[in-house]
């Protein structure tokens, strides 16, 4: 599905380079569920941002669905992630001024989906996540777990091939966290590729492969036999 070859990313501080990603190579196959672990500042979020094309890198090659991300233009890149990637954040990042329904609908608006189709899609997903009754509430009226549920629903509405989740359970209690992870597992079984960054060993175990990062480099990789 995607392939990173010798990715470097650095920032300059006082004339010296501080590496955020240091010679990182990674290949992800379709249908995988990857957990990225590592201490704070090890580059987990940076890696996810690079994979999600939200952030640039300084050196290396990145192929996403055979497309060379490092050479294509900004606009094509935006299309690529718009079509294929859904994001889930630790802080949910719902738009406060929009209701649950409208938040979930927003990505469809940016993809210029027709109104009737939008309605059907949003209704489906509300149904699936059991939040039909909450559709007219604003984010501030929901609990953290419910907000994250909406966040995931919003990420899934465009039927992405890849979900990038940056500490999706970081702001949740353990029970809520578990529910979200179960949901991810379910989605993964349906064929969605998932890459999550996490601090929690337990959550990491949901993945089919765990990658450990330290100072921007991969230190070890553990695969589970499925």
């Amino acid at each position, binding site marked *: 599905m995607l392939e990173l070859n010798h990715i470097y990313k650095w920032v300059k501080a006082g004339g010296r380079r501080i590496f955020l990603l240091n010679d990182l190579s990674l290949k992800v196959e379709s249908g995988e569920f990857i957990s990225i672990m590592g201490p704070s500042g090890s580059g987990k979020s940076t890696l996810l941002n690079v994979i999600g094309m*939200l952030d640039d890198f300084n050196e290396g090659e990145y192929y996403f669905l055979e497309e060379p991300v490092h050479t294509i233009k900004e606009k094509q890149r935006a299309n690529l992630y718009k079509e294929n990637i859904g994001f889930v954040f630790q802080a949910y*990042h719902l738009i406060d*001024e929009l209701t649950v329904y409208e938040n979930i*609908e*927003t990505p469809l608006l*940016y993809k*210029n989906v027709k109104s009737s189709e939008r309605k059907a899609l949003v209704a489906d997903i509300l149904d699936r996540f059991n939040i039909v009754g909450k559709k007219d509430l604003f984010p501030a009226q929901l609990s953290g777990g419910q907000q994250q549920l909406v966040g995931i629903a919003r990420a899934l509405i465009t039927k992405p091939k890849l979900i990038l989740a940056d500490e999706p359970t970081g702001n949740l209690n353990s029970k809520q966290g578990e529910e979200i992870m179960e949901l991810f597992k379910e989605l993964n079984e349906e064929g969605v590729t998932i890459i999550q960054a996490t601090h929690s060993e337990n959550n990491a175990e949901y993945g089919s492969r765990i990658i450990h990062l330290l100072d921007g480099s991969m230190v070890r990789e553990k695969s589970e036999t499925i």
Partner: protein
Amino acid sequence: MNKNYLKIAFRNLWKNLTFTSLNILGLTIAFGVAILLSTYALFQLSYDEFHENKDSIYQVYSTDQLPDGPEGDVSKSIPFAGALQEEVPGVEKITRFNGRGVLVLNGDKQLTMTAAYVDPDFFSIFSFPAIKGEKNNPIGKKSSVAISEAAANKIFGHTDVLGESIRVITEGKESPFTVSAIIEDMPDQSSIKFDLALDFTNQSDFSYADNIGDWDKENHEVYMQLAKGVTPQQFEKSTEAFTVAHYADDMAAAKRDGAQPNAEGNYIQIRLFPVADISLAEFKNGIATANKTMPFLVLGISFLIIFIASVNFINMSIAKSTQRLREIGMRKTLGAGKSQLFFQFWGESILVFIISVALGMLIALALMDPFKTLFNTQATFSSIATPEILTGFIFVLLLITLIAGGYPALLLSKLGTIQALKGKLKLSGKNRVRDFLMVLQFGIAILLISGTFVLHNQLEFMRTKDLGFNKEQVVAFALNGKQNDTRTMQLLRDELEDKPGILQITAANNILGLGKDGSRSTSVLGFEYKGRNVYTNMLFVDYDYSETIGLEVIQGRSFDRKYATDSLSVVINEAMARTIQEENPLNARIYLDDSLSFSVIGVVKDYNFQDLDNTIEPITLFLNPERSTRYAYVKVSPKNATTSFEKIRAAWNKIEPNAEFTGSFLDENIDRTLKRERTMTTIISSGAIIAIVLSCIGLFAISLLIVAQRRKEIGIRKVVGASVSTITLMLTKDFLKLVGISFLIAAPVAWWLMSKWLQEYPYKIELNIWIFIAAGVLSAVIAVLTISFKTIKAALQNPVKSLKTE
């Protein structure tokens, strides 16, 4: 999609109600005021545009090269127009025009009205359509009169009056006329206005019949329509032979007296000035130019006001945007493109602008009437609502919205995704833009405030200046009754002379300042004095003139009934004494022609008989009770001046019960001549007030935001021991710095502009640094007061509270 944007826009505006209302309030005021001001300016610029032939109609004037420099002259002699049409190719149509106040009689009714004495071509040159009666040539017969609808209503009470007859008295000559046409009322933007139009030849003999064939006596204006294919320049050039043929004597005299010819070597040049610009005409070096400073100044001020309000909008939008960074970042990860984000934010701006423009229009509509009174204008929306102006208006609005709304939108849409998601925005660069805009804002405010001070001082200076005559104690009024003026004066004297409080009575043929009747004239006499041409203003006066209005006789004496020869004597002012270059002016004798000469019996101190934008010119006072009687002057004692005024009114009403009493004290007359300055002061000062109010709204909003941003810092500072005053000072200091910079920029600009403006006036105040410092200090004080609401509150707050919220 758009519905989503609209929804979020409304919710956002609602959520930030304080800022939304401050923004809408500021923009509404700005748009309201700007609409009114530009209505005024466009109205000024739209004068005389309604004539169908406006591109080919010109007023004919000439530039005379005199020893003192070139002088413009719009007055023409009786044979001029006819000869010009005959001798110079390119005259399609031509008309003489003499507008004057006449007395209209219909039965017992007697009304003072404005008559236009014109040639038949007048109605085909200008677009004053007849709505009833003779349409093509309303004054084809000598005894015909065309009257305006309004005049018809005044004289007859209705407009169904074709064939009715009226009597008209002009300069003592009474003649009957038959109404041949009703003219549609002239638009407000017409420089030429009249109640009735009469054939030119109907004037009194003194004005017309006596001067047929006389090229020297110039007493009316001439308008012409240029033939197709002839440019004004070509025409002006082709008049050379004409001037040589008819003005040879004048040109020779000018040459003899040492006048410099113009660039083409001519001493008299006939020129054309487009009628469409005539309301703004002004002579510069003898050449008429359209002075559009005033309308453009007003337009400029309205743009400045909108600019200030837009700056508020930009500053607030950018400052508030930090709260929306997460939304922006999120939308980007959800697939929003730059342009989509731009249009979303721009849409929100448009919403605010639409609301403000709509409210501003309502305000402008509501304030139209007081505005008209305040600015002394007839401007209305309908009078300027042409398609071009409306299109322009919409275009300007779109442009403003694009810039003021688009700039913050552009900044926000350009943010990097990650940066936005993290909610961090490097503020240093943006602050510079904000500071720059605020400096501009305050600079404009300081500029307008110092302008207000200077204009106001100058106006007061001119109003209270010692003009060389007694303006507080003298009442003047027009002798606009039916009776012979000399007789009226006699009756007045009989009626008033012994009354207590009435000191002296006299008359003259011109007014000082501008009377309630709104008319005044200039009479210039040119004659040869010891081999040079000499020009002087002339005034016919009655006995006691200099005593009544309080002129100071510095040499010789004034007119006295004791001397029978005084009817052949003149009194001159110092400027005239200098002009005739006589060691003892009392020895001078003025020869008007071989048989008529006057001896100088007295010299009066220079006094300002003209408007204060003129230096004092030579004037010669002739004693002629018969011809002097157009205005009566009565000096009253300072005690009970109002009672005396009422006595004068009562006397007038007794003598002329049907004629309006137009009396007013001379200082009121002087005030009337300062209308332009007064209007300008009103415009600048209202601009200044609006500018400072708007700047303060912006400042207030920014102070709200800054205090919110530095809440934690303020808390920490208080915990470590800062006092309320040091914190207030710290918060205020930054703003004061901006005001200081604005002052440094604005003060020199204001100084330069003001000194340039004052140059027009020979009598002016000295510019004083304190005026500008006062403006700066005033702005600073207002600024500090505005922000102190928030800063003091912030400084007083319990630090535990502000720290806990973190």
